[in-house]
């Protein structure tokens, strides 16, 4: 099969999106709405305008739950997504998958503009869509939408670099805003400019020696930009932030761990799983390819049976180990090792210029973005390392296709088939984020202790666990009748009536089928001379109430649907109270620094 050259940009984009969407469907189909996981519970909340300003001067997480990092754009993106989607996890996950498909299509474009044939470029888009490092790193975990945003900006920067690299050097200035944006999303993008410099050097070496002049011009700019970015972050955080600097030995181990994860799809439970997978696949391929097909059918069947047997725990028991010798991870690792080694070998021995260029680009990106992971090794952060690994694999496919001669038309279909274990492994990784997956349930317990979590979600988490343990599917968080932020714990007044203190702002998400909601407000300090004003915005309507006595007053808000209600799958009601007060300001010996508004009760929903 040969893939015809797609001539127009629009047609290529359309095909790349379709290919990437097919890959995403294979991996995430039927398991899109995986709900929330771990940090999602406190990042999905309304963000006060003070916090939106604050994240430009300190940690990205004003709740204090996360380690201090300077990621202001991420904080703004999180605020924007909550405003748009609320707790509608299905829509939020759909955004992740759409973003991943977009990234994958852009990778196709990246390869095409690097001179790869159409089929190889589309293969790159496919490999990106099904690569098993992405479910954890940027698709299935909503907090890692920051990685998705970072990937988009980095790929856009690479595309921009392709556009400006043969223009006068001053055009390279266009890369600076993208590098700054990526850095303000997440700090590992600090490697973007050095990587672009390294790619320019590589181009000077392999393609166009006049590029060295550009390298000389870029070097001081990149150095200055890096020093400025790191210095700015240090000034804003008052420290470098992060998890600290490990010892040399640990840093070295962590660096290799990142490379293993991206290039070899290790760690498997044991490296032998990948080796066993590699041996199994190569043996099967040899059996199928050599001699007459009739005789080798039997050999192929025997090998298939051997793979099935080795992937059960039975042989492992004889060997005294607790895991199968061949797992999806092992098979996928075997595929990746085989493809990379064969592709690199063929490209080197036959001096295939184009595939070598693509493979080296992939290697530079992998090594460059893996460098910060010498400081901390986290598998969920390998999205940019995986981008390099995908380019390396695409280069290998290009090398094999070029070298295959008469049978080159079989290379792409075989490559797609060979990539299926990667897709299946990715599907397994995505399934680990299902609401009842053991890892999700275990972190749910931790999340329920966070102060930033609304009481309604805190009460829902144990019910979710109970249903999971009973083998039932849990209700979605979006189905909760009401979820509120800015309300403190319930108290009882002298009259025995329950109420909750509000903060200066309250945000409520109510089920979309609610038609109206009624609230009761009371201020123990309100009087005619010192009234308290309450503003309630629900749907497109705004209502106001003035408290000028200490009595309860009531307000009913009619709720009407709209585009945002559909996106959020909920009505959002915003309540603001003026004036509010801080107990510690009224009484300096009181340690309570919270903003308090009025007493609040929901009367009817």
């Amino acid at each position, binding site marked *: 099969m040969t893939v015809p050259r797609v001539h127009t940009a629009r047609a290529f984009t359309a095909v790349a999106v379709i290919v990437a969407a097919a890959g995403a469907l294979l991996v995430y189909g039927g398991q899109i709405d995986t709900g929330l996981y771990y940090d999602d519970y406190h990042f999905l909340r309304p963000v006060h305008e*003070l916090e939106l*300003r*604050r994240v430009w001067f300190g940690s990205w997480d004003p709740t204090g739950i996360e380690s201090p990092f300077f990621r202001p754009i991420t904080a703004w993106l999180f605020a924007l997504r909550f405003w748009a989607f609320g707790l509608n996890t299905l829509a939020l996950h759909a955004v992740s998958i759409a973003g991943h498909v977009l990234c994958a299509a852009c990778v196709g474009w990246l390869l095409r503009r690097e001179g790869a044939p159409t089929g190889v470029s589309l293969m790159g888009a496919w490999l990106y869509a099904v690569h098993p490092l992405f479910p954890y790193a940027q698709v299935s975990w909503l907090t890692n939408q920051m990685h998705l945003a970072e990937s988009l900006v980095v790929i856009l920067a690479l595309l921009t670099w392709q556009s400006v690299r043969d223009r006068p050097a001053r055009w390279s*200035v266009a890369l600076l805003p993208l590098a700054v944006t990526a850095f303000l999303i997440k700090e590992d993008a600090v490697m973007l400019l050095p990587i672009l410099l390294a790619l320019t050097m590589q181009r000077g070496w392999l393609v166009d020696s006049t590029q060295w002049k550009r390298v000389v011009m870029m070097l001081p700019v990149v150095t200055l930009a890096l020093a400025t970015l790191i210095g700015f972050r240090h000034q804003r955080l008052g420290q470098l932030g992060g998890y600290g600097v490990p010892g040399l030995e640990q840093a070295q181990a962590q660096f290799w761990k990142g490379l293993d994860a991206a290039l070899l799809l290790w760690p498997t439970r044991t490296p032998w799983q990948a080796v066993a997978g590699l041996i199994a696949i190569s043996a099967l391929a040899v059996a199928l390819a050599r001699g007459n097909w009739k005789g080798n059918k039997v050999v192929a069947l025997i090998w298939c049976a051997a793979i099935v047997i080795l992937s059960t725990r039975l042989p492992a028991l004889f060997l005294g180990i607790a895991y199968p010798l061949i797992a999806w991870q092992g098979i996928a690792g075997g595929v990746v090792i085989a493809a990379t080694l064969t592709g690199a070998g063929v490209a080197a021995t036959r001096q295939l210029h184009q595939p070598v260029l693509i493979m080296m680009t992939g290697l530079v990106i992998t090594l460059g973005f893996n460098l910060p992971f010498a400081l901390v090794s986290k598998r969920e952060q390998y999205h940019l390392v995986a981008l390099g690994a995908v380019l390396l694999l695409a280069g290998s496919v290009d090398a094999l296709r070029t070298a295959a001669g008469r049978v080159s038309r079989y290379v792409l279909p075989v490559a797609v088939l060979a990539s299926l274990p990667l897709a299946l492994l990715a599907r397994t990784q995505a399934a680990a984020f299902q609401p009842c997956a053991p890892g999700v349930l275990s972190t749910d317990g931790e999340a329920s202790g966070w102060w930033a979590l609304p009481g309604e979600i805190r009460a829902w988490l144990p019910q979710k666990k109970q249903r999971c343990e009973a083998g039932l599917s849990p209700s979605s968080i979006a189905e909760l009748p009401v979820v509120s932020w800015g309300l403190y714990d319930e108290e009882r007044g002298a009259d025995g009536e329950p109420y909750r203190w509000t903060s200066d702002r309250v945000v409520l998400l109510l089920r979309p089928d609610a038609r109206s909601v009624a609230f009761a407000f009371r201020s123990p300090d309100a009087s005619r001379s010192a009234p308290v004003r309450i503003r309630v915005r629900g749907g497109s309507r705004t209502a106001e109430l003035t408290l000028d006595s200490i009595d309860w007053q009531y307000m009913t808000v009619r709720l009407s649907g709209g585009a945002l209600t559909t996106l959020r799958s909920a009505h959002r009601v915003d309540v603001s109270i003026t004036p509010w007060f801080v107990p*510690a300001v009224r009484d300096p010996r009181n340690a309570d620094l919270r903003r308090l508004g009025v007493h609040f009760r929901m009367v009817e929903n």
Partner: protein
Amino acid sequence: MSRRPVYLLPAALIAAAALYFASGRGDEALVADLIAQFDDAKKQPDTAFERADVTVDGVTKRSIVARGPTRLTTHVTVPKHAVFRTSLTLDPGVWNEPGDGVLFFVGVSDGRSFQTRASVTLDAFGRPADRHWRDISVNLEEFAGLTISIVLNTRAGAAENATAQNDVAVWGAPMIVAR
């Protein structure tokens, strides 16, 4: 595209940065004088503090003197462009008395999390260079609009086996100003 717009971009960025930093300089307004708020502050232990005028290098500052390991907590509502400023020293009366110094650290709590924003160890007995005022400032821009606790802490010196012998710490003219 002509050359000019491309060159203008970095120039505009540098100009914007210069304007930003320049706008942060200028007259300062007093937001909170921690000496004036001393009576309302939470003192731990209550008897370890006193207000006094302390003179070092001929400069006299209205100060809070803290003996031994202490914590002094004051609430402040922070405006934009606010900075906490103080000058640190040890009481000149103990400079020649044996001791291993005092660890000063300034913390900020927004009611949710506590951050140590500055820390200094002074050892006037062991290091004569510490027999001066040491000015420190803590940028509070991050907390603009919020009510926070400024926590002034003293501990026995940074060493593991440090003692509080002759630890008489001085917080000179602690205040919050806004630019």
